[in-house]
């Protein structure tokens, strides 16, 4: 038995229903729901026209023969009656009844000896030569037709004409021009999605580890390490970028000679391999002495520089070879262009990558140095060092923020963008260093995790359709802007999806590998990566699928692909052409969907 409802409950329920009604009523008003429009005959007629056009996609067409017969007519009738000559009845001809008439009067037009079973327009041709359609004609099996139509209001003293036009398909059907354009654009669309997915995935995979809670939260460092890392990072960036640009300049000198260039590309990896083999022995039971350590460090440094030089030379070689090959490959010239483009990408990304690697290496060095300091120095020394380092690191960090803000807003007042942030940062660093115990583990992993997540969430909330507008300004309207916008969105959303897969791996293998004495990086390679390969493949395929769908409309906002063509045809009211593009989109999306499902099944 249900508990009886109190009157108050009933009143509240009634009020809730009423409130819902008001909310929906307001919704109708703001969304301008207009039933009058849907019922208006004019709108319905337009809708039917569009639907019919959409049902007849412009894919195949015939070459057409056109056949014209002119019949003179006087509008209005002259005073002496009609004086037009009799038609020549040996070929196709038309008879007008009456032979002359007032403007807007109805006349009957009969045609004889036309091509049987053809259609076409019946036009009125004034002396200006502009044709005005009066009616459509349809000939029967004997080539005869009869149609009654109204004359236009075009009175003129000269003789005017009525023209019967019939058209006939000749030959076999062939693809229309629109079908060819659609094919070109749909290919562009699929590859746009492929490139965006590839670029996005390449960046999203490493980023996803930073956004994985289970990998990041155990990482803690003492304040000494954090402060040293913050101080060392810009230095490392500067050193890395400097080394790369020096090597780039050095490679410029070597590229003058092809032999030197090719030799460098071959010798570089050999030097790297030899140095790495010597400096990184496969097994080491005892720790090496300081002299050997320094020698190894130098060897690795030489290897890094030789590697950079070789990569610059390789980039130049690809650029030169690609440009040389492109004109000779004929139809395959895009391969040469591609090789050149790869060389170009390698060349300009080297400085950036080298700066990041330099920063990363020095962050690592700073972290280790901090760890050693906090383990080996007495508490008071460590504490005073922390006060100093905390202040410096806080000031550096905030000064960098200040510089970024200045770059964005162009305040150009060093007091506000440099000295005050640096002062605030120094104070904050000092307070943190003073309040914390000298070797308290700071949850630096959790901080990085939170920052990464926040950035990706922010990026993900902006649709690629909006992002493409920014990229179209930067690289121009076209598919490249679409690639960049979709790639950025892929990074943001896949890094999140991937990281959730990392978070849901089985903890057992992780524990087992850790127990063997493996480092954190080894644990990731041996226990995490094997577990995440299938879901990563699956999500990447799914993302390609999404990107194909997105790239069909990214053209609406200037991102290239088939959307561009579709939008043009819709704006030109060319619905039959637009229908072809919609059909192409449907086919590609459906088959991508099928294909990606099949491939995901394989991967797991």
């Amino acid at each position, binding site marked *: 038995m249900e508990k009886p409802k109190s009157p108050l409950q009933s009143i509240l329920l009634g009020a809730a229903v009423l409130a819902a009604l008001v909310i929906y009523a307001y919704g109708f008003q703001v969304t301008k729901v207009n039933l009058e429009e849907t019922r208006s005959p004019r709108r319905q007629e337009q809708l039917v026209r569009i639907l019919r056009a959409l049902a007849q996609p412009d894919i195949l067409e015939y070459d057409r023969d056109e056949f014209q017969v002119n019949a003179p007519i006087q509008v209005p009738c002259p005073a002496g009656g009609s004086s037009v000559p009799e038609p020549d009845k040996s070929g196709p001809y038309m008879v007008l009844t009456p032979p002359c008439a007032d403007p807007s009067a109805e006349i009957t037009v009969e045609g004889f000896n036309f091509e049987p079973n053809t259609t076409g327009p019946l036009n009125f041709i004034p002396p200006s030569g502009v044709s005005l359609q009066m009616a459509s004609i349809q000939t029967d099996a004997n080539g005869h037709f009869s149609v009654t139509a109204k004359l236009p209001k075009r009175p003129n003293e000269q003789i005017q004409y009525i023209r019967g036009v019939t058209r006939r398909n000749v030959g076999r059907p062939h693809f229309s021009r629109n079908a060819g354009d659609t094919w070109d654009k749909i290919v562009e669309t699929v590859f746009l999605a492929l490139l965006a997915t590839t670029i996005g995935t390449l960046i999203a995979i490493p980023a996803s580890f930073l956004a994985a809670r289970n990998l990041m939260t155990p990482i803690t460092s003492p304040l000494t390490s954090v402060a040293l890392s913050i101080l060392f990072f810009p230095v490392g960036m500067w050193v890395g970028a400097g080394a790369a640009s020096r090597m780039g300049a050095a490679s410029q000198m070597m590229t003058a000679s092809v032999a030197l260039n090719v030799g460098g590309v071959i010798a570089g990896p050999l030097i790297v391999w030899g140095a*790495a083999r010597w400096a*990184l*022995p*496969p*097994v*080491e*039971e005892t720790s090496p002495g300081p002299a050997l350590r320094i020698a190894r460090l130098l060897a690795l440094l030489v290897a890094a520089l030789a590697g950079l030089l070789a990569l610059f030379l390789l980039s130049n070689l690809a650029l030169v070879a690609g440009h040389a090959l492109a004109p000779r490959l004929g139809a395959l010239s895009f391969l040469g262009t591609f090789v050149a483009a790869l060389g170009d990408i390698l060349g300009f990304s080297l400085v950036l990558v080298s700066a990041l690697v330099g920063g990363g290496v020095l962050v690592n060095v700073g972290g280790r140095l901090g*760890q050693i300091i906090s*383990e080996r120095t007495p508490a008071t020394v460590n504490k005073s060092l922390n006060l100093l380092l905390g202040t410096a690191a806080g000031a550096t960090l905030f000064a960098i923020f200040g510089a970024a803000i200045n770059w964005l807003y162009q305040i150009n007042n060093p007091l506000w963008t440099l000295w005050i942030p640096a002062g605030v940062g120094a104070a904050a660093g000092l307070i943190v260093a003073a309040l914390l115990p000298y070797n308290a583990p700071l949850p630096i992993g959790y901080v990085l995790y939170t920052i990464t997540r926040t950035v990706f969430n922010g990026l993900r909330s902006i649709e690629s359709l909006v992002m493409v507008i920014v990229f179209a300004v930067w690289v121009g309207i076209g598919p490249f802007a679409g690639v960049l916008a979709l790639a950025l969105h892929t990074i943001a959303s896949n890094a999140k999806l991937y990281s959730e897969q990392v978070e849901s791996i089985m903890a*057992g*293998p992780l*524990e*087992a*590998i*850790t*127990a*063997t*004495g*493996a*480092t954190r*990086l*080894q644990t990731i*390679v*041996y*226990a995490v990566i*094997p*577990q995440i*390969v*299938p879901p990563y493949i699956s999500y990447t395929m799914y993302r390609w699928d999404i990107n194909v769908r997105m790239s069909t409309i990214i053209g609406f906002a200037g991102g290239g692909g088939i959307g561009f063509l579709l939008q043009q045809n819709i704006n030109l009211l060319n619905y039959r052409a637009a229908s072809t593009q919609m059909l192409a989109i449907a086919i590609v999306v459906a088959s991508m969907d099928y294909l990606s499902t099949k491939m995901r099944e394989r991967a797991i």
Partner: protein
Amino acid sequence: MLKIENLTKVYSPGGVRALEDVSFDVPRGQFLAVIGLSGSGKSTLLRCINRLIEPTSGRVILDGQDVTAANAEELRHIRRRIGMVFQHFNLVHRSSVLTNVLAGRLGYVNPAWSLVNRFPKSDAEKARREMERVGIGDKLYHRADALSGGQQQRVGIARALMQDPDVILADEPVASLDPVLAHSIMQYLEQINKEDGVTVLCSLHFLDLVHRYAHRVVALNAGRLVFDGLPQEIDDRRFKEIYGQEAERVG
């Protein structure tokens, strides 16, 4: 050789006291069984020894070296001397058996090379030998999850042997296996203990296994050490102290 001193572990959210002031010594070459109900702290005890779980207080001393005070680098060097075998085997399913076994060498090899899956030739040969030793030398190139439970546990033992361990921590190594397989796995552990002189700490559920294999038993109840002695000393009264008044002996 292994000294546990006043080891206490309190899990931070909730304040569950998994271990309460546990102390005992293990001489070199002993086969020590750890018994107790589920949740009595056996797994926590074993994991505190190689600091997979960080103890709240107390010390673990291995061959005179304080494990609990070791820094990250020292801890890695200690861990590689302590092999570990798990109830659920903890193999990486999608990797080959060989890769799983070679993972036992990760503490020894240079991290840079291991990241690109390059191991010294001697390690690959050792992996082959250890797999022969646990009787499945023909399974090296199978995927780990293609093996049966008993075979997977043997791979787990081979992985621990790759570390050339002084100590093996076995956390209920046979709890997921049927009785016949259980004895075969226990026999491998016994063999390693006898032939190589490896100290074994093994948590077990079944007392007949304890009687058959262990030199000595420590028992935990709600995180406290309630018994430390020979297997045959566990009479009915002791049994009820360890497992509670309602417990009945099986097996």
